């Protein structure tokens, strides 16, 4: 089977550009990345369909070869799916903008908390290693770094509480019935 080099190269460029964009934090850029990669993959199907020939309609071939219609049907399905996905991602980006004023993908709250705990551990371990002498007792200055991390932990805690409250409010939604105010 011979295939078009141009199609392959274009598809490769589109997919790599798309993947590069997907590594951004902003949802709109990610969306553009998804679209580009999606189109690159669609081109790959055209490569898979082999040498192009006549349009695959009944009674139009008149003895000529026709293109393989199956990959075209698959590409159509894939395009429709990408369309739906685009709509959904746009909605999510907009909602994120409504809630936070930006559309950046955030880290997991609990993950951040664990990372901070680990950092706090590292600090104390290095302290023991470097300094073999006993800490003097009148040195009652609290470690500023430790204090900072405690504050951060408290902030995380607050964030989690807020999240729990929001969950409570929406959990009942799923019963999916009853009209408000009726």
């Amino acid at each position, binding site marked *: 089977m011979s295939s078009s080099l141009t199609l392959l190269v274009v598809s490769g460029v589109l997919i790599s550009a798309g993947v590069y964009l997907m590594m951004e934090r902003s949802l709109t850029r990610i969306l553009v990345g998804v679209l580009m990669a999606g189109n690159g993959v669609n081109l790959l*199907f055209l490569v898979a369909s082999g040498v192009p020939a006549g349009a695959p309609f009944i009674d139009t071939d008149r003895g000529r070869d026709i293109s393989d219609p199956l990959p075209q049907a698959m590409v159509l399905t894939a395009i429709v799916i990408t369309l739906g*996905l685009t709509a959904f991602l746009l909605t999510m980006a907009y909602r994120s903008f409504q809630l936070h004023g930006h559309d950046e*993908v955030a880290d*997991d709250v609990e993950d951040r908390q664990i990372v901070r705990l680990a950092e706090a551990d590292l600090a104390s371990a290095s302290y023991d290693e470097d300094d073999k002498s006993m800490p003097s007792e009148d040195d009652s200055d609290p470690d500023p770094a430790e204090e900072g991390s405690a504050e951060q932990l408290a902030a995380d805690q607050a964030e989690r509480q807020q999240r729990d409250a929001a969950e409570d409010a929406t*959990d009942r*939604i799923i019963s999916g019935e*009853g009209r*408000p105010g009726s």
Partner: protein
Amino acid sequence: MNNLLPLPVLLPLLGAGLALVLGRHPRAQRVTSSTVLLAVVLVAATLVFLTDRYGPLVLWVGAWPEPLGVALVADRLSSLMLLVSSIVTFTVLVFSMGQGVEERKRETPISIYHPTFLVLSAGVSNAFLAGDLFNLFVGFEMLLFASYVLLTLGGTGERIRAGTTYVLVSVLSSLLFLIAIACIYAACGTVNLAQLSLRLPELDPDVQLILQLVLLTVFSIKAAVFPLSAWLPDSYPTAPAPVTAVFAGLLTKVGVYAIIRTQTLLFGDSPLSGLLMWAALATMIIGILGAIAQSEIKRMLSFTLVSHIGYMIFGVSLASEAGFAGAIFYTAHHITIQTTLFLVTGLIERRGGSTSLNDLGGLAALSPVLGVLFFVPAMNLAGIPPFSGFIGKVGLLEAGVQNGGALAYALVIGGVITSLLTLYAMAKVWNRAFWRAVPESTPAGNPLVVRRRSILLPRGMVVTSAFLVLVGVGITFVAGPLYGYADRAATDMLSGLPYVQAVLPAGVR
């Protein structure tokens, strides 16, 4: 009888349309969706009976000449998965309807939940019944789209955050899947699984290896196998309890099903057995270590979910009849148990006001029923002898010993350790949430809801959770026939012949 095949896909889709139209009539909507799902359970049960007795059922949709159209195939494996998943979806739907009337009137309702749930069910059925790779992809997309909506239900900040990660990971895996399909079509000129099982072995071994690796990566993302599992514990816990429950039960298992299907049918004598064994070992151990570190019950359960996917991959990686039989039995068991545990966690959240182990306490005294509902599936998950978790694990361990390789023994040891650590994690939940005295104050500083004795759990929710607990226990009672069924399914798949002969007309390749 072949005409039964499209019903598990068609009925929920039609039901979804109807439920959307009936959005203003909640009662009618509830009746529609539960009737539809109950019908799917019945159809699936019939399919299990028919395929076990008469062999695989095939329907070529659209009456095209035979190797051209789209084939729906039900063999022993897919109909068993269909039955278990439909029972679970039906129960979870009834669970989510079990809220008090007062509560419903107070809160802002949305009518989108039922239709989306039905589309999810249709997607899962389609993935199980798909007879070609592209239809499998469509099934995956249906269930993924429904899951995007369900995961971001209500659009709160936390859910949007979790949803973003989930959607992006899923999109990436879908793109990879499309690339795999395009490559396979270019190489073989077909996407029909039965035809591929004849044409793929004729390819150059290196090309085969590439195709197999891409497909394995795709399905491993969906199934949350270790290096590709980080998205799961991050996104599942934020969704409402019934949604998390059905995701945990079904979505990853569809990935496992796809791995089993492609590993047996398309890549029969695979050189990747060793790689899969390492992946299984890492999934089990790292998953369960993650679970132990958590203090949120939902997150902990998400990690045990990842860890127990390792058991199924363990069975698959052995590539023997006993291994596949164990994996199938374990999948059926795990769908039920993991869903039950997440539903019960939903009840814990209602009763105790939190799912954090730091805030909970004294639940066993306050609500003994809840204690029983949690304890039985928790022990089942850990694999305590009378329960089905034990039977599934013993089957897998036996298969591992039968294999006899050094890596297989490492997996056996890893499996036992994982089982013990699961018991440890479950005991931690039990000790802190159920047995210890109610803590004086919580780190978060909010007064405990737990002290109020007036909170009653909605009866509908308790009854449906109890039903699932009983189904889980019931697997022990039918373990003999079920394991026999899994054995027969494994034999079928390893030989591959019954499937191919049923799907393709004689002489077609």
